[in-house]
């Protein structure tokens, strides 16, 4: 470590010299890293937003508990008491048969006359429940559907499950893509560094003979890879950030704000840090792969 600190200036000079010497190759790999990091970032933003939406919708979902016909007031009140005791309940309201009919009429609007043909009131009375935690809703639904007084329990499970399926598919394909892109970046960076290493193989050989430590020989190349990764992912992050901002503004202008997008800050900061970290790591790894062969003397 002391060797590393003493030699830091030397490493930086060597790295700068090498990057300038191979500037076209360096620029080409920076651009390739930028492109793949950008695609990676887009996927990350999409997957995270999908997750966010699914979580949001889930938290918005209400559960309707439809009661059997012909229950006494005590039985109905008793169900209400038990529902009140459910964990994480945030809201509870009761709709009797008449209110349900009224609501139904309103919803039908002009066609409400159809209902005049119906004998009596076939609609059940119901409780409507909201929960602060989606998981509690699922547990409560399973539990409440067992009550003797309850005809059926409904909540937006279909929508949520659909949403989860979609987001799961995006997540899986996103992960595959991320692995693929990371592999490609690794290949590109290690190839660039391989050229540098190859151009300097005699120097490396002499360094080995005169007793330079492996760390000393390695660091300038590692720095080079890290800088390519850092600059590439930095450009990609900046573009992504700007694009996300534009997208949010467009969505607002088009009146799509009911879609629960993740706010730009600190979300984009996290995405940026993640991309920068990945860029540095991949750059370092790519270099390490390239120099391994030349370190064995």
């Amino acid at each position, binding site marked *: 470590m002391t*060797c590393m600190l*003493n*030699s830091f200036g*030397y490493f930086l000079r060597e790295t700068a010299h090498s990057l300038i010497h191979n500037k076209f190759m360096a620029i080409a790999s920076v651009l390739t890293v930028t492109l793949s990091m950008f695609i990676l970032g887009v996927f990350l933003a999409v997957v995270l937003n999908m997750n966010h939406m699914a979580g949001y919708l889930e938290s918005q979902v209400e559960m309707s508990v439809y009661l059997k016909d012909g229950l006494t007031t005590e039985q109905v009140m008793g169900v209400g008491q038990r529902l009140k005791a459910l964990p994480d309940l945030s809201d509870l309201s009761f709709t009797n048969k008449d209110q349900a009919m009224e609501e139904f009429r309103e919803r039908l609007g002009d066609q409400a006359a159809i209902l005049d043909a119906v004998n009596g009131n076939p609609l059940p009375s119901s409780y409507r429940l909201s929960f602060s935690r989606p998981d509690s809703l699922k547990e409560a639904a399973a539990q409440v559907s067992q009550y003797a007084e309850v005809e059926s329990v409904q909540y937006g499970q279909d929508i949520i499950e659909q949403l989860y399926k979609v987001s799961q598919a995006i997540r899986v394909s996103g992960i595959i893509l991320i692995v693929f892109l990371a592999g490609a970046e690794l290949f590109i960076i290690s190839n660039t560094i391989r050229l540098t290493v190859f151009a300097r193989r*005699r*120097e490396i*050989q*002499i*360094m*080995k*003979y*005169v*007793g*330079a*430590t*492996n760390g*000393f*020989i390695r660091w300038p190349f590692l720095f080079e890879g890290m800088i390519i990764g850092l600059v590439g992912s930095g450009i990609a992050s900046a573009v992504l950030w700007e694009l996300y901002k534009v997208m949010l503004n467009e969505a607002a202008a088009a009146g799509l704000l009911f879609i629960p997008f993740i706010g730009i800050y600190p979300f984009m900061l996290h995405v940026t840090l993640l991309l920068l970290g990945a860029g540095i790591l991949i750059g370092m790894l790519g270099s390490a792969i390239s120099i391994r062969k030349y370190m064995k*003397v």
Partner: protein
Amino acid sequence: MITLEHVYIEYTKTKIALRDINIHVDKGEFVFIVGPSGAGKSTFIKMLTHELVPYKGSVIVNGVEVNKLKKSKVPYYRRKLGIVFQDFRLLQEKTVFENIAFVLRVTGVRGKKEIREKVNRVLDLVNLRNKANAYPAQLSGGEQQRVAIARALVNRPTLLIADEPTGNLDPATSEEIMDLFNNINHMGTTIIMVTHNKDLVNAMHKRVVSIEDGHIVSDVKKGGYDLHA
């Protein structure tokens, strides 16, 4: 200085490069290693520089048990050796001065004044101070080899290893280079030199170790190239 006991080195499982090598070299000695191509001379040198590690036997150099050296200690061991090659191995894009200073820099020397003093000292030793700012391509073969020798000496090694140092040079220049090695030896540096050059070996009257087919066939104190034959 150097003690080898029952050293065996293999290239592959079936091909043995050196077998049962036993030799002792005192501090300040000048030893020629001779023998036909493929006899194991280069392997012998690679063993001293820890490029090859014997699978049997012990190699002790400067009190260091080289065959048991940890990977992380190898660079520090090599700093006490000077190595000279047949093909000089100078960096073409660096000046003479920079080629030598490079060795100091990569082994952690940072002071500009210290580097200048040390480089000038070895340049004086090989009599090339006036070519300090020249590039290797501007020098003759003999001069390039002198730069390589200066580079090998800059860390003040106690052991100087030379692998066919005159192999690329004409006879007159080879003699000059040999004189230089002789001077360095007189200043106290132990020298191990692999060579094919009969005339030089015969003229020097130094210790000659002959290797054939992977083992030592003769070891003569003030020998000549053909004495063992």
